[in-house]
């Protein structure tokens, strides 16, 4: 267990270093001057030079990366070049939005897919089982922003039930979470069906039924748990994708999440902001993967850490 943790920590740090290096190099290579983007075309050459100097852009790239690395290790994420406030403040404001979106979307997708998937696997020959299958294929094919705009049109404009955008309170999250969850529910339903179909064919299920166990118990206590491994893995992957992939939904609903922050940072060539958000994203991915390993070990007693 000790060596496992040590190896994991070393690979964590290596990945984070590589991610920050690649991000830095990419922004260097990308054409675009942050000073000009900030001051605009009506500014004077002297003003531009002064700002570049203030931002430390006139120093060699290696020096700038080194300084950023040293500060990062000390916990100082630096100041945003565009907003002139600490990057940590910006991230702290954006993080709850994205976390809520991602976690609730996966939770909703899991709940929905389990319900529909299990029932349709058990009663697959019935017409509504097949209908669920068709609808889920449809939901997977439709683009997110289109679903989002349709939902806004229906619930915000026509029915006036929910806000059309912005982040005022929990009601602002209902439509975006729904938009994110729909295609993912479809994917997970598929996985649940496959997992359940495999499990239901197994011998121990026949034994349980023969023993006289109620059908409900057979479904959920035995078949589902074993089919759940595939679903849990898929949900974990989706969560990881969502941590960085909420940008389209954030744009459509005007939600100030990490996706928006990162996009604006790149467009403005705001190096400290982009570096911090990408490294944070990498941390999120690594931590989620680790959590998935732990959960998988819970679910499947055959998995061991070594």
């Amino acid at each position, binding site marked *: 267990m000790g060596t496992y943790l040590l190896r994991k920590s070393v690979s964590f740090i290596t990945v984070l270093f590589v991610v920050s290096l690649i991000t830095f190099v990419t922004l260097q290579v*990308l*054409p*675009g*001057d942050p000073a*000009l*983007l*900030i*001051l*605009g*075309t*009506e*500014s*004077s*050459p*002297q*003003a531009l030079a*002064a*700002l570049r100097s203030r931002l430390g852009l006139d120093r060699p790239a290696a020096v700038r990366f080194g300084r950023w690395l040293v500060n990062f290790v000390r916990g100082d994420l630096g100041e945003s070049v*565009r*907003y*002139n*406030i600490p990057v940590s403040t*910006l991230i702290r*404001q*954006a*993080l*709850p*939005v994205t*976390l*809520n979106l991602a*976690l*609730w979307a996966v*939770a909703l997708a899991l709940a929905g897919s389990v319900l529909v998937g299990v029932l349709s696997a058990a009663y697959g020959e019935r017409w509504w089982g097949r209908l669920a299958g068709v609808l889920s294929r449809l939901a997977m094919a439709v683009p997110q922003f289109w679903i989002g*705009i349709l939902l*806004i*049109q229906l619930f*915000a*404009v026509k029915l*006036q039930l929910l*806000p*059309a*955008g*912005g*982040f*005022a*309170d*929990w009601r602002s999250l209902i439509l975006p979470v729904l938009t994110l969850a729909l295609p993912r529910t479809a994917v997970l339903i598929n996985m649940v069906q496959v997992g359940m179909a495999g499990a239901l064919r197994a011998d121990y299920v026949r034994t349980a039924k023969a023993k006289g166990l109620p059908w409900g118990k057979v479904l959920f206590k035995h078949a589902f748990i074993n089919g759940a491994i595939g679903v849990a893995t898929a949900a974990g992957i989706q969560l990881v994708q969502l941590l960085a992939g909420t940008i389209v939904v954030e*744009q*459509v*609903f*005007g939600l*100030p999440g990490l996706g*928006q*922050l990162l996009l*604006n940072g790149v*467009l*403005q*060539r705001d190096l400290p902001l982009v570096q911090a958000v990408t490294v944070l994203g990498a941390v999120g991915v690594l931590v989620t993967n680790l959590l998935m390993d732990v959960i998988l070990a*819970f*679910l499947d007693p055959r998995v061991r850490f070594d």
Partner: protein
Amino acid sequence: MKYTLTLIVLAAVCVLAPAAAVSGASLRIAVSADPDTFDPTQAVAASTVEIAFNIYEGLVKAAPDGTLVGALASHWEVSPDQLTYTFTLRDAFFHDGRKVTADDVASALNRARDPNVSARWSDFALVESVEGSGSEVVIHLSQPNAAFLYTLAEINAAIYPRDAQGLASRPIGTGPYRLVEWRPNQYVRLERFEQHWSGHLPYYDEVVFRIIPDQNSAVLNLLSGDVDLIPRMEASVYHQVAYNPAVKVEAGPMNLVQILAINNQRPPFDDIRVRKALAMSINRDEIIYGAAWGFAQPLYSGISPAMSAFFNDSLADVNPYDPERARELLREAGMSGLHFTLTLPADYPLHVQTGEIAAQQWKAIGVDVDIELVEWGTWLERVYTQRDYDVSIVGLAGRLDPHAILVRYTTGNSRNFFNFSSSEFDRLVEEGLRLQGPERAAAYKRAQEILAQDVAGIFVMDPEQLAAMRREIKGWAHYPIYVLDAARLYE
């Protein structure tokens, strides 16, 4: 049990979600970009100025017709040699309750012209001294400059308390509204300032600028009632609100010059016949209807009709629409097989659509055009800074004074990415600073003529600003600069 743990974590995370309720006689405005900083020595982004117009004031401020009215100065006098400006201050208060003194004014203006402090100090380079005492502020210039008064109306000449700190996120001005809360990427919240010097209080207690980058989202927010006003709606989404009885759209000139920029120094564009040929094959009506849905006025030179005092209205026939003549000119120049790249800024749908229509119009006279879309940061780097382009398109921002608009085309100017050069033009622009009244207007009208005759670029149109708002909102006025005056709105 494994799942309850996850559920508990989820519930805990939701507690982190902050709530920000907005209610009362509140005006919610959708803007597409975040401000960058509210420090007048730094702030230059257009999105910042739009909002800051309500927070800060200078000695003078702009009126909707482009003229200047007194703000912190009740009146002023200019010496006959145009070198001394004497301003008489009126009684006014800052947002923190302190009275505005001549010291504050002098301090703010001296900081604005200090190279170590201000990003736009060069705008004030001709100021020799600023002195304040009692209720007067006296400014000495090193040479006459007709544009100087307009410089005092801009954000960089805003007045703030002399010992103010942290203005970037906590501005202290004298305007009709004061900043109460700014959440980057979310909103900027302003509250009515009860002690404004005019004694006239704006209707809305509170103004919230909501940052909504996507135009479709902004329109949906307007239709659902979550937003009251979209000050700059794109023509491409106009039809979504056009027939909605709850919404009205006010259209007015923007004082923006949209130009098909030609790289004057790159062959074959250094040959005026080639530039003229390109200019004479552009059908502006097609572009005005195809890209701007009819919401635009055609332009033939660098100044928009919105600047009525200086606009030269006789230039429509300098490069008239004549595709046959255009083909002839290309043949004369030996460029019948002309092939070039049109670089378009992807962030501006209006310019992209204009470019696409122009490319088709050029194809009709046998010119082969490759369209290249670039993102704004890249456009600034490649086209604007390095001037590495054939033909491009951009909108040149409106300014109050014609000098600021025309100086862009002078030889060697840092903004002259067109690489245009005409010594007569340079002379006229320089002279114009020292002239006044009709003589000044005449100089600038001749300067516009040169821009058209020498084809510095192809001036296409001044697109109208479309302000979409709830039908009940009144008092809207268009300004020739990128600002929004919330204090004049009411219901």
